[in-house]
């Protein structure tokens, strides 16, 4: 309330509370805003009686309970809902329709034979759904049965399950527990009712947020206080907005406003606070996090989309064939009874049902169309979807099980979270990679610093080593030439402290006191120890201090300060305690710094400051920040070391290090007083420009700083990243780096991982031109935007011109663009030119890009290019990108789970991408595409014989085969081999996949699933059907077919043809695959044997079941030699053309995998020259990666020799 606000400054003098320190993020005085007037109105009608569950007014039954369900189905909805899901697929729906129609007299076969396979297929998919949902259910149960302490009346708290919570309950949440529902914070273990909250599960941010309860309730810090406590909350209705909350609390007749500052969201975690008390406001599905949850975008692979097209093509063929059949059928039926004369009298055309009535031949033809559509339904593979799903699940298991993608240190195997993108992994054209945590480890190591113009630190960074390699010189050890002798000394030990890789005897072990600018060094490290928001945690047993920091850089600083003798060991609400060396006495003393204000870091300010009061009452403002904002804030007399520091900072950036500038100033009492009044005024202001007013105030105090020096923190590259990038580049995959880092760092990381190299032409697009800068000073937003856009467009056009000018020159280009320019480059009218430019460049690096921009770039590449994109990242800022890309790969590293949760596949290290794409991706792509082609082939082979037979029955829709032969074809006699193909086939082994990365281009170019190939397989199916049908027909017609003079009937022709088909499709499979394990043998030969078993057993069933097939095999087919002779002949002749084709192709026009197979076969794999020959099969030179770098070097050597 306003009254409290005026009292506060006096209070702070005496006891400064932490909540008052934070300037930007933290609370200001709660007050009634405009929104509060809406309470009670529409959208703001929620009423909560806190702590009065039994109150007659508390009509809490209106609100949902706290049970949270994330399952797709419940017991009751499972059947209808999952059936609906199933029949949304057009093919399944078609089979449903034919299944229903099969109960009508229209059916060419019995209803059960049509329904059983459908039930089988649908049932299998539904079981899968049910199992998946059951897993979710188990997780739900675990969550809903977590326990929390709830007020049971009279000040007693009992432990209760989460699901039993109801609105209005008072709960007590302990440290490191999750909040069970959305709560209004009443009080905490801190006096001012603040608490720290980790919201990683909500937004992926690892830094802690501060929340604060109302002043009136902050005194309720004991259980017993809640005896008789009563409050009445009116607030907004449940909604999905995480950052808004409007409500009022009525307490003892007075009304207090509630804001998001008092709201604790479900799924966030209480940190650094012993306990809190809260009142439940939203439960279960009303909570903001649940309201917010959206189903992740469902992604479908390119192959699956194309498969849909094939299915439509098949539908078209079915319709076409049915139509042809119906027309002919109509005509012949009409002719059966003309002018009172019956032609085919044995059909009794004069008294027939409407389906065959010559007088209504057109109607009969229309009915016939339906019948024929049912009969030809075998063109569409009913088991395709379910087989593909089975295959993909098994493939994912292989990916999860791959021991080469298991990360020992973190105990993390690869995890394919969605299985429906496996084959897409084999078609990736562009990889969009995050930098931090993906290419780099996100483990920050304090490695160098520059204090008072002297550079300290002798560690060698990975980047420096890479640069050393790049320059072709031995290690560039030391940048500081003054102390060459040190550089020769080998480093005694590996860094043992995480986050600290600093070696310099001059200032370590307290030696700094003898350095020339010891006082500056002292201030420098003191600043590192004091200016931060880190919270120390002391291990009670070992007395060891660990730090809880918002970011790894911060932790690295505090650790560095500790290692150099400035140990920050305690933080209270108002103070920071540091053990440090006294410069005068040379003893370790404990110093207490009173923290008066904290001006936090944010991305616009790019700096953070604290205002502290030293023990002697001196007021200091300590500030650290990015170089570009810091140098301009230095005072005239604070620029003593500016030149040297700038040089050092540039050097560090060159080496790929993150730099920060450290500076300070002293404040006098008066100045501080003015500032403090202003800032509290700004903080308590209610107007909309509060933010900017705070900015303004802080701006005024953070100036005239005195430079201390600069820090350099290494962002370590992950293991094997350069090698992996090289392999991927050889595979022809383009790699774009999208990072939030600044340009220099990004470029350096680019060099380190060989995405950039010296002879590459860098096209840099930024807005760092003087004109723009001067415009920015005027602050006219429209003018800036206009000028910026023009500038960006001009730069893009220039870049394109360069690209064009270079033409076929092997000189590769690299595009580097910063976030500001990117914002304009992504405008609708510019983005296509930008994309053209970017696609023309070998490497693209986008720096300073926001999460949104990352997603936009991804979308641009995906839609503009039509090629498959893969995004890889580890942080919450990559979520948009991961979801936008065709495939999102999450790094399951140390940062939150958010990226992994929204990814399709999670791996532990960037380097596993190589195996994931080149091996698993290639295999899966090959398997699935071959499998789909084969599926259609086998169904056409089967279905088309039906059609051909029809032609000999005047298209009366007599099936050529027994009903159960028809329906079990897809399920028994041809399904397992194709599944085995989908799961196990390998064209070349993993070793060769990695040895010849160019093989990957088969997927990118989609050669294995091109229309040419698909139609080729379909053609194969058609002619196989033709050969089988006509050879069988001619061989069997019309003479006796055994020595007993028996002539073949329908069941014998059908049985013979069916046998031939089973043999042909299975042997075709054997010809098509190149990898025979025992499993392949079992399923292929097994399928054929199963057919013989089936026909035998089925034939032995009573004739009423087996009808025409009764004993047909035992009695008629098997004893007849001609059956076997015909089978042999037909099968061999049918496969002959394919065999000739593949023999010629394999020998004379091998595809890339064929070449590798030859190499392996002929044992030339160890012959480097041969391998090289095969490797360099592309007219497009590889442009990035260190192989390319070597090539470039060779070129330049040659050029210089010839010159």
């Amino acid at each position, binding site marked *: 309330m306003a009254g409290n606000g005026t009292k506060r400054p006096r209070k702070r003098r005496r006891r400064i509370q932490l909540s008052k320190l934070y300037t930007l993020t933290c609370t200001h005085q709660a007050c009634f805003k405009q929104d509060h007037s809406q309470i009670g109105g529409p959208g703001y009608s929620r009423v909560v009686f806190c702590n009065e569950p039994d109150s007659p007014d508390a009509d809490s039954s209106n609100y949902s309970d706290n049970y949270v369900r*994330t399952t797709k189905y419940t017991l009751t909805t499972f059947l209808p809902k999952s059936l609906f899901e199933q029949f949304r697929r057009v093919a399944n729906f078609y089979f449903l329709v034919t299944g229903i129609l099969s109960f009508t007299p229209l059916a060419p076969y019995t209803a059960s034979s049509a329904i059983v396979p459908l039930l089988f297929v649908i049932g299998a998919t539904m079981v899968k759904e049910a199992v998946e949902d059951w897993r979710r259910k188990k997780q739900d149960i675990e*969550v809903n049965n977590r326990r929390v302490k709830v007020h049971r009346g009279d000040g007693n708290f009992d432990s209760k399950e989460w699901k039993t919570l109801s609105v209005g309950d008072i709960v007590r949440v302990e440290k490191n527990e999750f909040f069970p529902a959305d709560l209004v914070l009443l009080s905490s273990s801190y006096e001012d009712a603040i608490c720290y909250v980790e919201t990683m599960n*909500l937004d992926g941010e690892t830094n802690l947020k501060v929340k604060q309860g109302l002043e009136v309730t902050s005194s309720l810090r004991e259980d017993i206080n809640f005896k008789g406590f009563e409050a009445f909350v009116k607030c907004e209705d449940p909604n999905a907005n995480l950052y808004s909350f409007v409500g009022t609390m009525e307490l003892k007749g007075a009304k207090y406003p509630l804001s998001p500052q008092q709201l604790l969201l479900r799924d966030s975690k209480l940190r650094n606070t012993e306990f809190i008390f809260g009142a439940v406001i939203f439960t279960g599905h009303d909570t903001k996090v649940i309201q*917010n949850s*959206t189903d992740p975008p469902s992604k479908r692979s390119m192959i699956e989309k194309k498969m849909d097209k094939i299915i439509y093509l098949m539908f078209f063929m079915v319709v076409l064939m049915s139509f042809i059949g119906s027309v002919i059928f109509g005509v012949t039926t009409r002719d059966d009874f003309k002018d009172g*004369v*019956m*032609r*085919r009298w044995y*059909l009794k055309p004069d008294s*027939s049902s409407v389906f065959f009535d010559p007088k209504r031949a057109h109607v009969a033809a229309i009915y016939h169309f339906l019948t024929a559509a049912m009969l030809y339904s075998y063109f569409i593979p009913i088991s395709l979807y379910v087989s593909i799903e089975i295959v993909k699940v098994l493939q994912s298991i292989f990916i999860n*099980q791959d*021991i080469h993608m298991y990360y020992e240190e973190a105990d993390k195997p690869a995890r394919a979270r969605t299985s429906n993108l496996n084959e897409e992994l084999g078609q990736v054209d562009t990889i969009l990679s995050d930098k931090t945590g993906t290419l780099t480890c996100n483990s920050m190591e304090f490695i160098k610093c520059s204090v008072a113009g002297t550079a300290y630190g002798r560690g060698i960074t990975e980047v420096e080593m890479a640069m050393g390699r790049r320059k072709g010189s031995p290690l560039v050890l030391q940048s500081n030439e003054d102390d060459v002798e040190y550089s020769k000394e080998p480093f005694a030990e590996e860094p043992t402290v995480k986050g600290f890789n600093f070696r310099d005897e001059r200032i370590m072990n307290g030696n700094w006191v003898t350095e020339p600018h010891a006082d500056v060094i002292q201030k420098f490290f003191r600043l590192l120890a004091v200016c931060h928001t880190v919270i120390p945690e002391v291990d009670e047993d070992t007395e060891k201090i660990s730090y809880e920091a918002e970011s790894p850089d911060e932790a690295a600083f505090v650790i560095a300060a500790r290692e150099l003798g400035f140990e920050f060991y305690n933080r209270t609400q108002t103070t920071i305690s540091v053990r440090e060396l006294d410069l005068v006495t040379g003893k370790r003393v404990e110093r207490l710094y009173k923290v008066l204000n904290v001006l936090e870091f944010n991305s616009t300010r790019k700096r953070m400051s604290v205002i502290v009061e030293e023990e002697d009452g001196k007021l200091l403002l300590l500030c650290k920040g990015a170089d570009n904002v810091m140098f301009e804030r230095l005072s005239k007399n604070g620029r003593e070391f500016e030149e040297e520091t700038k040089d050092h900072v540039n050097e560090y950036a060159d080496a790929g290090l993150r730099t920060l500038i450290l500076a300070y100033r002293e404040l006098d009492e008066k100045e501080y007083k003015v500032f403090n009044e202003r800032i509290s005024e700004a903080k308590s202001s209610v107007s909309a420009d509060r933010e900017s007013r705070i900015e303004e105030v802080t701006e005024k105090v953070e100036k005239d700083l005195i430079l201390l020096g600069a820090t350099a923190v290494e962002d370590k590259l992950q293991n094997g990243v350069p090698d992996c990038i090289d392999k991927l580049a050889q595979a022809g995959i383009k790699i774009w780096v999208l990072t939030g880092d600044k340009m220099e760092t990004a470029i350096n990381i680019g060099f380190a991982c060989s995405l950039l190299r010296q002879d590459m032409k860098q096209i840099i697009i930024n807005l760092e031109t003087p004109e723009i800068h001067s415009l920015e000073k005027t602050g006219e937003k429209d003018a800036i935007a206009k000028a910026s856009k023009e500038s960006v467009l001009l730069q893009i056009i220039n870049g394109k011109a360069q690209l064009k000018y270079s033409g076929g020159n092997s000189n590769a280009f690299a595009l580097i663009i910063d976030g500001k320019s990117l914002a304009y480059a992504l405008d609708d009218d510019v983005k296509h030119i930008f994309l053209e430019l970017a696609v023309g460049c070998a490497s693209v690096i986008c720096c300073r890009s926001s999460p949104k921009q990352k997603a936009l770039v991804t979308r641009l590449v995906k839609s503009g290019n039509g090629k498959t994109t893969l995004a890889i990242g580890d942080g919450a800022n990559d979520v948009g990108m991961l979801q936008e890309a065709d495939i999102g790969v999450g790094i399951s590293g140390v940062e939150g*789970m*958010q990226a992994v*949760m*929204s990814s399709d596949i*999670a791996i532990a290290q960037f380097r596993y991408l190589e195996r994931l794409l080149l091996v698993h991706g290639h295999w899966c792509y090959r398997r699935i595409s071959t499998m789909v082609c084969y599926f259609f082939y086998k169904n056409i082979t089967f279905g088309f014989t039906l059609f051909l037979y029809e032609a*000999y029955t005047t298209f009366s829709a007599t099936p050529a085969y027994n009903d159960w032969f028809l329906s079990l074809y897809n399920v028994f006699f041809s399904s397992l081999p194709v599944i085995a193909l989908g799961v196990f086939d390998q064209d070349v082994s*993993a070793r060769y996949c990695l040895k010849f990365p160019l093989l990957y281009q088969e997927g990118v*170019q989609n050669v294995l699933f091109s229309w040419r190939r698909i139609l080729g397989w379909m053609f194969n199916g058609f002619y196989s059907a033709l050969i089988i049908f006509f*050879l069988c027909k*001619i061989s069997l*017609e*019309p*003479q*006796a077919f055994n*020595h007993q*003079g*028996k*002539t073949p*009937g329908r069941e*014998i*022709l059908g049985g013979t043809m069916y046998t031939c088909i089973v043999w042909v499709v299975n042997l075709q499979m054997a010809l098509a695959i*190149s*990898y*025979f*394990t*025992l499993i392949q043998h079992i399923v292929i030969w097994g399928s054929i044997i199963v057919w013989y078993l089936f026909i035998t057993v089925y034939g032995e069933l009573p*004739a*009423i079941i087996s009808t025409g097939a009764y*004993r047909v095999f035992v*009695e008629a087919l098997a004893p007849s*030699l001609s059956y076997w*002779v015909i089978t042999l*002949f037909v099968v*061999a*002749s049918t496969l*002959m053309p394919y*065999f000739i084709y593949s*023999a010629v192709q394999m*020998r*004379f026009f091998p*595809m*890339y995998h*064929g*070449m590798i197979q030859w190499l392996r*076969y002929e044992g030339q794999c160890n012959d480097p020259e041969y391998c090289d020959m095969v490797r360099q099969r*592309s007219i*497009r030179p590889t442009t990035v990666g260190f192989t390319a770098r070597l090539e470039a070097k060779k070129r330049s050597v040659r050029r210089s020799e010839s010159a």
Partner: protein
Amino acid sequence: MPSNTASSSSAPAGSADSSASRTKSKRPKYSKFTQQELPACKPILTPGWVILTFLVISVIFIPLGVVSLFASQDVVEIVDRYDNDCVPTPARANKVAYIQGVSDKSCNRTLVVPKKMKQPIYVYYQLENFYQNHRRYVKSRSDSQLRSVKDENQIDACKPEDDVNGRPIVPCGLIAWSLFNDTYTLSKNNQPLTVNKRGIAWKSDREHKFGKNVFPKNFQEGNITGGGRLDANKSLSEQEDLIVWMRTAALPTFRKLYGKIESDLEKGDTIHVTLLNNYNTYSFDGKKKLVLSTTSWLGGKNDFLGIAYLTVGGICFFLALVFTIMYLVKPRRLGDPTYLSWNRVPGGGR
């Protein structure tokens, strides 16, 4: 670990993982199966294999072809088309009227045995352009009624030949109704030649599909008579003509067994056939043929299979030669890059 977060609907990744890691390592177990390193043969079509395959096929096919062709040549077959000739010249203008009329339908044919025919000699009738495989026709029968007396009322499928004035027809349906009813009486050199009509149907049909105590009832008693009549005193399982007829033919041209002659016929023997030309094939322009044929191990006379075997065997032999020459003359260029698709499409790989 996170509980059900915003994206928890997507997977059960979080909590289960962490608990597992505490207890045991998640390192995948090594096995050749999971690492996809199972021992496998990886055949590729090397010249040796290709040539060998062709050779093997030709080595198998050519002898098989020769044997088949010989078998087919051994079969002696006499085919006599009589549908046209057995209609008296004056009636030929309207054959349908003739066949539907009541005039005497008997007809004499003379066949000369071209070669010695060893017994058993099979007598067939061959119909052409007769769609026994028409769906309406195929379905127009009642298997249960044929098998047992108590199911004689199961006549749903038989329409319109299901009942006569409410009494079920046994056997019902269009197939039985249209039973072929030409008869042949054979004599050799004026000696009657017995045609044995037993054992012409499949055993399984006789024993399991046609009941021993099912007798024809109300057969051909409707207003239109279709084809042949049945002896009401003989059970269906003994009516082998019917059983043969009821096993529907696959194609519109078909032969069906009429009987067996169980004595040899010498070359030059003349056989007189007195046939009753009852069956109407004229309204749908069908041909009728009488066929006398011996059989071989391969069945009746059909040169196609032998010739086809020889042809394919020959082609394979030829291909074996061609491939040998190709492999010798034109050594493989190890992967001409121009065949790779990404090289064919300039800029396609970008």
